[in-house]
């Protein structure tokens, strides 16, 4: 078997990473430049001459904050749209992280927009800003713009970590969908009340194009493409098998599943169409590469939702969104591979190893479990490792109270270290997958070796 792999041309990971990094940098540049472009719209309408009186300065700043705030919200929609090109460049996780980090600044800009304009108008007419609200609401399109701002506040407040914990995912998501309405409600007043986006201007065309891109990408990649893909592949549950107590593999049957183009380590968002489960979608990694007619995931009964899906009857219709994520071969940057996975976190690693291209001796794997019972799919991983020439260590036992806490106590006492298991760590891509608390410990240990951040690929797994 090994010779089959050694004939493969050696992939230059450095070059593929350089290409991906260029695309990621381009996205960062696009983000910031779109903000600058929003301010430039104001300048292009002769706004620079408006900075004369204090009232005019307030009004001008109010217009600029409104433009930049709206631009950020549109960028957030694009980042949440799961556009394949963005997913391939920076990965779904980072896209969502950037999306989250823009939420509060965007809301503050929109609130500043309202406040500054009320103050500026108030200063120029001699009314107090609150008294300006009345005449402003009398303008066409302004009432729904106020409603939009209220919705936006609701969306951001429910997304604050402390508040979000009190909501179920579905409840939170339902509120989050209001952001589409909030942004749509803001558009009419931008086009009618503001002079910047007046009829027949280049600014108006640019702005409408931004809205079309944001809403278009949401419509296409969040709704239309997944629907077509689900209809085309006709996926159904073909079997549910127990791997260990509380852990089940769900097998799917479908048409042409290879053409989904999934890479090992990627996930899909699954929806099981039974009366009790259809309203809940589950992001779950593949635990084996799909064949043209079958696919497999492996889940642990943690949340109430996952307990229910392990009980779905054979024949249940399944719809999918995906594949998503950069926890795959496509993220490689360095010549060697170091893989550390724990518990149910071994499932994407199992698919990754099956799919990834690496030469014999290139990859080293360390599997962790607390007890013998939690060694899910280890037999399969060992087989693949043997066939592809990867070194596979295993470590069973509860987390050590001393030393490197992610290892088992007996191994820490034996003197096992990260450097001992992975002597080539500095030239390796490190793939980490497991429960968050455990993964934080490993990642800290890996980062302590000062290997570049782009060589670390972590997937936190809590179900």
């Amino acid at each position, binding site marked *: 078997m090994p010779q089959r792999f050694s004939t493969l041309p050696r992939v230059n990971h450095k070059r593929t990473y350089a290409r991906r990094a260029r695309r*990621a*940098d381009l996205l*960062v540049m696009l*983000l910031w*430049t779109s903000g*600058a472009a929003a301010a430039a719209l104001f300048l*292009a309408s*002769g706004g620079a001459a408006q900075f004369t009186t204090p009232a005019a300065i307030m009004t001008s700043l109010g217009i600029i904050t409104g433009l930049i705030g709206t631009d950020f919200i549109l960028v957030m929609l694009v980042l949440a749209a799961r556009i394949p090109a963005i997913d391939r460049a920076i990965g779904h996780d980072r896209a969502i992280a950037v999306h989250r980090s823009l939420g509060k600044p965007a809301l503050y800009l929109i609130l500043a927009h309202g406040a500054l304009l009320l103050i500026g108008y108030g200063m120029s007419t001699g009314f107090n800003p609150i008294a300006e609200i009345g005449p*402003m609401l009398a*303008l066409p399109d302004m009432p729904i713009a106020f409603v939009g701002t209220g919705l936006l506040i609701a969306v951001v407040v429910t997304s604050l970590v402390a508040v979000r914990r009190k909501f179920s995912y579905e409840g939170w998501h339902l509120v989050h969908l209001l952001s589409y309405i909030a942004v749509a409600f803001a558009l009419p007043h931008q086009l009618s009340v503001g002079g910047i986006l007046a009829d027949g201007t280049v600014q108006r065309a640019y702005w409408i194009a931004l809205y079309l891109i944001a809403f278009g990408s949401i419509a296409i990649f969040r709704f239309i493409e997944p629907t077509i893909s689900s209809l085309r592949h006709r996926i159904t549950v073909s079997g549910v098998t127990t791997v260990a107590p509380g852990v089940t593999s769900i097998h799917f049957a479908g048409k042409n599943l290879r053409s989904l183009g999934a890479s090992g380590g990627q996930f899909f968002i699954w929806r099981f169409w039974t009366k009790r489960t259809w309203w809940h979608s589950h992001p779950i990694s593949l635990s084996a590469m799909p064949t043209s007619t079958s696919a497999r995931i492996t889940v642990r009964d943690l949340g109430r939702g996952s307990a229910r899906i392990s009980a779905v009857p054979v024949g249940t219709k399944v719809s999918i969104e995906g594949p998503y994520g950069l926890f795959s071969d496509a993220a490689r940057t360095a010549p060697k591979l170091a893989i550390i996975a724990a518990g149910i976190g071994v499932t994407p690693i199992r698919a990754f190893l099956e799919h990834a291209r690496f030469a014999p001796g290139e990859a080293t794997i360390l599997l962790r479990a607390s007890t013998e019972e939690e060694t899910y799919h280890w037999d399969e991983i060992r087989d693949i490792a043997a066939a592809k020439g990867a070194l596979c260590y295993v470590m069973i036992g509860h987390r050590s109270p001393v030393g490197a806490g992610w290892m088992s106590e007996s191994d820490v006492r034996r003197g096992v270290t990260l450097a001992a298991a992975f002597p080539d760590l500095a030239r390796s891509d490190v793939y980490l997958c497991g429960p968050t608390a455990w993964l934080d410990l490993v990642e800290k240990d890996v980062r302590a070796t000062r290997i570049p951040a782009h060589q670390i690929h972590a997937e936190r797994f809590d179900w």
Partner: protein
Amino acid sequence: MRTRAVLGSLFASTAVLVVGWQAGGAVLANQAIGTTTSAPQASGTSGTTAATVPSATPLPSATATAAPVAAGPADGTYTGSSVNTPFGSVQVAVTLSGGTITDVTAVHLTDADGRSRQISNYAAPMLRSEVLSSQSAHVSNVGGATYTTRGYLQSVQSALDQAGF
């Protein structure tokens, strides 16, 4: 790689802002030319309105009563010139009766956008009452409605000029 993204963003953002600023400068220059060239145009149109409107609108009785007064301007409604502002043109009609300004009506007010319409709506009544009480186009600026005020008063003045008020 991060450095490249930061530098690239800075460069691209600056470039976009400079382009916007330059385009804005061009817009302002055009507006300046627009107002200077439109002034003679406006007086030209006011010339034609002066020729048609005062002769057409004054009531026969008004001209009859105007004759004995002799020195005062003829009664009637005089339409002022249309004055361009960045927020739309402004044009008013002034009604004279017995040598006094009895009414000012708006023919057209700044309406480039909703905010301009809002400003027009509150500034016009104020300007009208000030013109009526001062009997001239020399009234103070309405705060927050500088362009509307300027256009309004210019148009009033041109109407008064036609009437020989």
